[in-house]
């Protein structure tokens, strides 16, 4: 662990090659594109309501984000609670 200082830079070659490959592949094939309907559809929303309550603390974690962070992944479905649907 302690001897890896500076050695990560050796990943530059493989990492750069992989990044360039996928970036150009997607540029040609556009496999990651789809209709951005979340933002391109006319949506009229009333103000968002809700509540928040502190339930816990974490101390001394090395993670930079909450585990399972999906705040920007609108299309990743989570557990569905079924309500009245008309």
């Amino acid at each position: 662990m302690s001897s890896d200082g500076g050695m990560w830079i050796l990943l530059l070659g493989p990492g750069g090659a992989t990044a360039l490959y996928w970036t150009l592949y997607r540029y040609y094939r556009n496999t990651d594109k789809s209709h951005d309907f979340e933002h391109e559809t006319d949506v009229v929303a009333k103000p968002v309501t809700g509540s928040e309550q502190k339930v816990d603390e974490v101390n001394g974690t090395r993670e930079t984000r909450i585990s399972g962070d999906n705040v920007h992944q609108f299309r990743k479905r989570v557990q569905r609670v079924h309500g009245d649907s008309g």
Partner: protein
Amino acid sequence: MSNANSPPPVPPPTGPGSPQDVPPPPGSFPIDPATLPQPIRDELQAPDPAAIDTAADELKDGLNRCPKCGSTEIRQKPGTDLLICLYCRNEWQGEGVEEAFGLGEGIDQLDGTVIASGARDINADAASLMTFKCPGCGAEVTVNTENAMTARCHWCRHVFGVNEQVPNGAVPDAVLPFHIKKDDAVARIRQFVDKRRLFALKAFKDEFTPENVVAVYLPYMIVDGKVSADVSGHGEIETRRYTKGSGDDKKTYYDADVYQLDRHVDFTVDDLPLESSAQRGNLDARTNTNNIINTIQPFDTKNAVKWNASYLSGVTSEKRDLDVEKLRPRLEDELLSIARAQVEQSVAGFDRGVRWEQEKVSVHGSRWVAMYLPVWLYSYHQPGRNGGMLHYIAVNGRTGETMGSVPVQQWKLLMTALAVGTFLEAIALFIVGHSS
């Protein structure tokens, strides 16, 4: 025995580009082009085909017979929504479906499911081949509604179209006429491909003939809805950040408060488009390139006109094969995505992110209208395993927005990536060698 098994349900599409992946913002590129070799940079920085805004254009429609002389030689005047009589040169316009049916209004009062007549369920036994008695001479003429909506009587040269709504789902409520002319579409496709030549499949470049682009009307359901949604989960706010150790052993640690969150939002959506053909609705980017056609949305569906088969003369069309109930899960999925996008701003304060765990959508009312939308489609079939891959380049027939899938010459791309990687590795080794 033989009818004991029903086919297993088709799993929802997954993978890159499918509805499960949020697309990157338009114009964004993950690598700074300035760091790439000159030829690649030139390609990346060439201009994209421009998309125009046609939202304010006039709305047109008409009868199948010229209202002035009664001729059936009616075409859409290229580049406009006008219909023109090729016999007496009379041009006319009609009413937009938005005004005629009041589709833009009352979305916040929607209750239950409202289905326009063209979006009704498809009769299972309805055939796609339809035979009509020619109103001119009485001969029988067949129209294959799988791919065309007009035909010419071989005997008396009358042109007639499928105007009445038929139970096989081929006649929608509305049609959005083409605005982009063929020359324009060809130029856009050429411009799009010129930006992607360096690593394109050689056979694709050799056979590239954008003049073969075809005009297609594709079937969509345009949905308005009144919805409320609830999401709940956990979010974290950073309270402290500190480092331990020194030198190479330095590590950053975080303290955070964990909150239980819930959010509720009421909203209405206006004109959300859903592919109403099962084949087009499958957006699995590993097996097809339908996501390309999905990407060129949105269309200015507000300008659609009431159905008239004359808009489809000389243009192919695809028949709808999905009913409202089949599309409902897809609608709810997209509504949940919209709800999550709506609440995103309200949880921006949770700087370590939010993990949504439960979500619920209630559709209080929805209104469904079947519509044909105009697409210029260029396709190239790349041979390969499992029947190969059909690559589309699609141009939005209204706005000119262009998107495509250009097949890649794998070895060339791999060699380039390896060469760049080797170069970077040499720099890395140089740095390591000199620092130790």
